């Protein structure tokens, strides 16, 4: 079985300050991990993915995430928030279940950016 826990349902930052969105996972299989972003009333867009290569993964729009196996974490960071970063962010773990690939989503973190 696999699961994803996003530790904060809401994160509020000021424009220009760092962003940290936290994600812990559990998986009995060496997982692939992803972050997706969803802007209001829009679909989901891939920010970045980890698939057992480099543990520090760089994504689009200045986001990056670090895979830490010992902590079972995959936190998303950005050095300086922009107003356009305000959105819902989902951490996803993809593992194997019964021979099939099953992506499991966290409940999401709403990022609020203040001017």
């Amino acid at each position, binding site marked *: 079985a696999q699961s994803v826990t996003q530790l904060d349902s809401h994160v509020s930052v000021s424009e220009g300050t760092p962003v940290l969105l936290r994600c812990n996972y559990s998986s009995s299989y060496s997982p692939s991990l*992803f972050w997706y972003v969803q802007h209001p009333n829009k679909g*989901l867009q*891939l920010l970045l993915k980890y698939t057992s290569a480099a543990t520090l993964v760089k994504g689009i729009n200045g986001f990056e995430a670090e895979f830490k196996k010992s902590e079972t974490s995959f936190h998303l960071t950005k050095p300086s928030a922009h107003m356009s970063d305000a959105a819902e962010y*989902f951490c996803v773990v993809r593992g194997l279940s019964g021979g099939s*690939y*099953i*992506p499991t*989503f966290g409940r999401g973190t709403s990022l609020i950016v203040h001017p």
Partner: protein
Amino acid sequence: DAGITQSPRHKVTETGTPVTLRCHQTENHRYMYWYRQDPGHGLRLIHYSYGVKDTDKGEVSDGYSVSRSKTEDFLLTLESATSSQTSVYFCAIMGTGELFFGEGSRLTVL
């Protein structure tokens, strides 16, 4: 962008009526998924398919059925819609290790 489309994009129906949502892909990918999105719950897996006529249940499959008779189409059916099935439904396909999503289908059951 991955070639994945959902129809209808919006639907309002009444309790007890059947509803079918369609997901169509042009990428020839093996895996297809149906999720529902509700506030505070993220996306929850309803059913998935790993090939033609090969489907399995996800964590919230009660009240839903699926069919995949062709690689490109994955249908989600609510046999008798209930108000608890009011939600936004997303179809996804798995490409080279990552998911690509449709635009979503907003279903309201009155």
